[in-house]
């Protein structure tokens, strides 16, 4: 595996924002997730829960609710606006003011017979506003009867003729045709001190058999008969609030998220053996969160929950999935599936990307020598050189640092900025004259000699800019032949400056020849989204790692998969490798050992030695400790290509510097937890 001097970096204070809302599109199996800072993330549940797209947030945009209409995504927030997002360009498409004060909820009819899809929002002033979703915009249609008190939650009856609205102290059922309220269901307040406080119906579900299920701030999940407007059953779930509800599509199971961080499942079960007399029965309780569960989705096979503790948890329901498979494993997604760290290999600088600023650090130095495992004395401490605050109200979506450390670029959805850095004097100057074509970028990348900047732009195109001392100049735009409109999320410029590889969320990997300024080839499309790409510096082989953990090596010269890649596909990857639940976020090579590929995910980094045999299905994948204990001749027998290191955990970034030392950026989850606000107080036994 080789020995590395490791810079163990723990000064990246990455802090994810709390999860506010989620919406699941069952047809495309995409989960849209909104965070407290206004950022939106799209996860592809069909492709190993890969975080496909991130739409950066904006100051003042607080998303309260999300809703899919077909493939279109809408959000509503406390700023009183409804926003539709452009998922191809990763930015808001337009916003519509609802003129009803803060909006608490948005709901659309799941299936509509007519062409126009109505969409409703519930507002602070007590109005339920109907909007018509048109081809390119939404249009205000009418108001339902105005009520006193704010509308907190909304749910359509599947027939689209009725709508249930959760309010303060009550639930109302509206007839959509007439706009009149047909029922008024009073929700009981909590007991004791909370008796004087209004109870908030945080979440509501309207089932096809006219059952209404509500979750409220008194900790109750109540089941109502929507036809008669009577209470059928009350389940006291928590002492605190029930914040979210979600019903499975077949309406046989229901989950409720509480402020205690628990998710409680209810099932519609028949109490007798003959299948009659079905009733909602409280069954399992999942405790995967330390804080409020604000958002919940009940998919076919799993409960997806997110909340204040910023983690997205996918908890498979064991009665719905095969046991002891990858599908039955619980997943916690804490880190973004893309790198927020940029490393200047030659200069030894690190650039950390935060939503509202950038931090440039110089790595520490040490001249000590020690045995493997020792920690060396630090001669020069790491130093924060620059903290650069962004301009405008849009959050930073991407940033890059040139390998020489002389250039720094970042982009928001509306603006692009390039800075010139003087390293020895630590000065920063903004490059004022920028080409017109460079408005914003989804991904940025500098060439190895820092003379070019590549920025992925609309319609999967890449803008190439030449960087010269006084100014920068637009050279050309590289466009794929496929005409795909999906955004490019990965860029890699080869070390010799000849190739540029791009990958977009439509799973296409394109390689451009930068000398000829044209598309060199398109790698055969594989069904899973690429999570990391890299081109080998000497052999010009492109290594692509996908969200389903598959690794491909593609020869750019022969325009075909290499022998090693074929061998790997034929033999198959080790099952333990495939069962890892975080994607590989970066691939790099070791210039000293051309056969070595270095890659990392959140929990390990791995060196793949292409000269060694691949691991058989029965061999131990994690065999470093065993190898160490074996004598030399035996060691050779037991070696295999995958050498994994789990010494470092919660990795944000692993990079190899020019001086052959390794930079490892860790962000311990405990540090994130310690920065969260205190959870609700819970009585524990024997305390």
């Amino acid at each position: 595996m080789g020995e590395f001097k490791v810079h163990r970096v723990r000064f990246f204070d990455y802090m994810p924002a709390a999860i506010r809302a989620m919406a699941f599109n069952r047809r495309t199996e995409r989960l849209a997730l909104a965070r407290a800072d206004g950022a939106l993330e799209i996860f592809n549940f069909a492709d190993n829960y890969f975080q496909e797209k991130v739409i950066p947030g904006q100051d003042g945009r607080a998303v309260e609710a999300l809703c899919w209409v077909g493939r279109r995504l809408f959000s509503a927030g406390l700023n009183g606006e409804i926003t539709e997002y452009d998922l191809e360009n990763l930015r808001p498409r337009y916003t519509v003011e609802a003129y009803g004060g803060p909006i608490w909820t948005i709901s659309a009819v799941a299936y509509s017979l007519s062409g126009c899809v109505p969409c409703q929002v519930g507002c602070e002033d007590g109005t339920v506003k109907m909007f018509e979703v048109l081809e390119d915009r939404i249009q205000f249609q009418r108001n339902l009867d105005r009520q006193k008190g704010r509308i907190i939650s909304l749910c359509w009856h599947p027939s689209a003729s009725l709508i249930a609205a959760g309010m303060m102290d009550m639930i109302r059922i509206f007839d959509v045709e007439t706009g009149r309220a047909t029922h008024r269901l009073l929700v009981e307040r909590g007991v004791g001190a909370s008796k004087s406080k209004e109870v908030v119906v945080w979440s509501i579900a309207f089932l096809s058999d006219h059952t209404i299920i509500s979750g409220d701030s008194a900790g109750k999940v109540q089941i109502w008969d929507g036809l008669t407007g009577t209470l059928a059953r009350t389940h006291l779930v928590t002492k605190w609030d029930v914040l979210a509800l979600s019903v499975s599509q077949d309406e046989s199971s229901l989950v409720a998220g509480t402020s205690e961080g628990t998710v409680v499942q209810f099932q519609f079960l028949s109490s007798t053996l003959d299948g009659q007399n079905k009733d909602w029965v409280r069954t399992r309780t999942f405790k995967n969160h330390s804080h409020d569960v604000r958002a919940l989705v009940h998919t076919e096979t799993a409960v997806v929950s997110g909340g204040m503790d910023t983690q997205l948890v996918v908890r498979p329901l064991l009665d719905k999935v095969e046991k002891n498979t990858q599908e039955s494993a619980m997943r916690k997604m804490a880190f973004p599936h893309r790198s927020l760290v940029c490393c200047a290999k030659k200069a030894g600088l690190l650039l950390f990307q935060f939503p509202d600023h950038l931090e440039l650090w110089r790595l520490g130095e040490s001249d000590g020598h020690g045995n493997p495992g020792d920690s060396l004395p630090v001669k020069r401490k790491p130093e924060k050189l620059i903290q650069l605050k962004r301009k405008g109200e849009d959050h930073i979506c991407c940033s890059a640092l040139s390998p020489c450390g002389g250039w720094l670029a970042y982009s928001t959805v509306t603006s692009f900025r390039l800075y010139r850095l003087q390293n020895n004097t630590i000065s920063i100057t903004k490059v004022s004259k920028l080409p017109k074509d460079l408005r914003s970028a989804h991904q940025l990348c500098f060439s190895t000699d820092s003379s070019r900047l590549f920025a992925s732009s609309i319609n999967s195109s890449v803008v190439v800019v030449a960087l010269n001392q006084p100014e920068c100049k637009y050279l050309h735009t590289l466009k794929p032949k496929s005409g795909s409109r999906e955004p490019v999320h990965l860029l890699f410029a080869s070390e010799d400056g000849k190739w540029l590889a791009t990958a977009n969320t439509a799973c296409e990997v394109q390689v451009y020849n930068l000398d000829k300024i044209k598309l060199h080839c398109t790698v055969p499309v594989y069904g899973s989204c690429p999570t990391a790409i890299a081109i080998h510096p000497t052999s010009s082989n492109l290594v692509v790692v996908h969200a389903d953990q598959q690794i491909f090596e593609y020869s750019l010269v022969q325009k075909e998969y290499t022998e090693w890649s074929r061998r790997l596909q034929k033999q198959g990857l080790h099952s333990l490798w495939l069962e890892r639940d975080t994607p590989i976020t970066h691939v790099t090579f070791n210039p000293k050992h051309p056969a070595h590929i270095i890659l990392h995910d959140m929990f390990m980094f791995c060196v793949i030695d292409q000269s060694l045999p691949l691991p058989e299905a029965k061999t131990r994948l994690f065999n470093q400790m065993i190898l160490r204990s074996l004598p030399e001749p035996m060691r050779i027998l037991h070696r295999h290509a995958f050498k994994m290191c789990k010494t470092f955990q919660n990795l944000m970034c692993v990079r190899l510097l020019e001086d052959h030392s390794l930079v490892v950026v860790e962000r311990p989850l405990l540090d994130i937890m310690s920065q969260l606000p205190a959870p609700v107080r819970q009585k524990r036994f024997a305390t």
Partner: protein
Amino acid sequence: MVEHGDIRVVHRGGSKINSREPVVTNDSRFLLCASGERVKVFSTSTEECVHDLRGHTDLVTGVLLRPTNHLQVYSCSVDGTVRLWDFTDGILIKVQTCSWLMFDIVCMCVCAELFQLVAVHLPQSGDQLVEAQELSAVLSNVSSNPAATGFGRGVRAPPLRSPNAPPGAITYPKTDKDNKKGGKNTLMCIACHPKDDCIATGHEDGKIRLWRNFNHKKEYTYTTLHWHHNAVSSLRFTPEGTNLLSGGLESVLVQWRYNQESERDFLPRLGSAITHIAVSPDGTLFCTSHSDNKITIIQSCVKVSAVIQGLVNGESVRTDLMVDPRSKSLVLNGKPGHLQFYSLQRDKLLYNLDIVQQEYIHELGLQQFEVVKVAFDAPGNWMATVEERKPKAAEPEINLKLWAFDEQTQSFVLNTTVSAPHEAQITSMCFSQAADGQTSMLVSASEDGHFKAWQLPRSAYEGPSWSCDFVGDYRGLAPQCCCFSADGSLLAVSFQEVVTVWSPASWELLTTLSQPPKAIRDLCFGRLGCSKYLMGTTASNLLCCWNLLTCSLEWSTSMDVSLLLSDPLTENMAAFCCQAESTDLFVFKPSEPRPVASLKAVCSGKVTRAVFAPREEMLESCEESSQWLNRSQLYFLTQHMLLQSPAHVLPSTSVLCSMFVESLLVSVADGRSVVHEHLVHVFLNNSHSDHLCLTLNVSQQNTHRL
């Protein structure tokens, strides 16, 4: 059938009544429970034992009401029979013999020795004794714990499939199924909902799971209820299925609303851990069995209406067996920190006396105060107790308490507490036997090398309290035993191999007696005509008799006496000799080295505690070998030294015809022997009880079943 004048050992009560779940009759008037070799019928309102269904020759392991006739009850036993009784009249109706040992009967299904669940077809026939041949195994490899098997009404196999299919039996599919995470979720008990498709299981970690869709292959689902902090030992649904009752170590009966599990009712402070819960068929009465051999009858989960208390079988009997001179009841350790007063004549617990008077906190490894010594003075006016707590790596905490009998409350009232009366463990304690009863004196000997005399000074002011009168020692040796002569004029204290004789009046060392080489183990003065003799046993297997008038050894014989005691009403003394795993009993008069009576192989194992209890009515027996039992009865406890399990079963015997028989070690249902201490009784077989002896079974062979 027993020869006239034969003396045998019988089990004298104190049987475990909490070994199996009690059964409440349909009209809620009677409670039936397995008690040793018999089934006891208690009245639920008066707590009195109404009938004793006698007939089984071994441990009764299951009681069940006959579904077709609610006045009849089945019982099964390790002796391999199922008996049908009429419990209102106490008549045996039918005996069903099975070739297998029965360990539990549940709904006509029996767990046999290999712990299979088998269905026994009980043939209809007029004969009283029927051999049941038809056995069909329902499930093999079931747990030996009967609580882990449950029967549901709704899970009856569809009649299409097979008409012979028994009512669906539910056992937990595999106990280790959920154990992969190393959680302590071993299944403890199971209960089926009477109507719904719902099965409740109790687990070792205190959780209760309600399983639904259980007979679906995969889509079963469960709810977890968690209140108990320790293992759930019993679960029961009420007959209507509206409530679920659970109990465990916390001695709290928890009532969960079915389908509204966040609402629950508690009945706390039931005294000790709940082992079984039973519900009357009409749902009005709940019965809980407790680990201290008690059955509590509860009216609709609100009020304890009756308590049926058996002999409390504590961890071990640290005190000697004592007889309260007033109530003639047996006094020994009961609940932690308590003394129990147990009526031998009526086989009934009279009351528990809280000695330690501290709240009992259950915690594993926590050192509790234990009552280790009890002494009564001759008229029964005073009782002295010693309690002790020995924290790890610390000095023991010892309290000496003196209790006065209060005529008004008819109970003992604490008079004096002496904290740290000695610096080390108290080895022996006795009251002076002074006949006048005026000057009571207590002597305590301790390992700290001193013996102390405590006296109640005749002070003028009210509320006299005891104080130390004299501290004696002898060459710095640790005193082991102390004993007063019958008239209270002499005190003998043994210091290793030396016996010192003191005059309590002047505290003067009168003489020393010794019989080297080994230390004295037991000391005992003769009574009545033999009061001039002092008997002692030594560790070198010598039984010595000293004449105190001549201060010389009268006689001595070589025998390994494990216990020596004197009958306070006669001149007789009893010595238990342990030889080759069985104990012999010798009864003799100190005046002559010839035994009055000797009984070989009284029981297996060592007899650790014994007591002579006075008879209520004197017997007129002319047989020389049994005359010694005319005035008193001898009770003793055996102890299986190897096993220290708290669960043990005391098979009981008849009060009327108790013969002098043996002690029994019973294998309980899990196949491991768990029994250690048994109260047994020496009794004279006189003529008028002969006919009853026929039904009494002397189960000598049971001792070898282990």
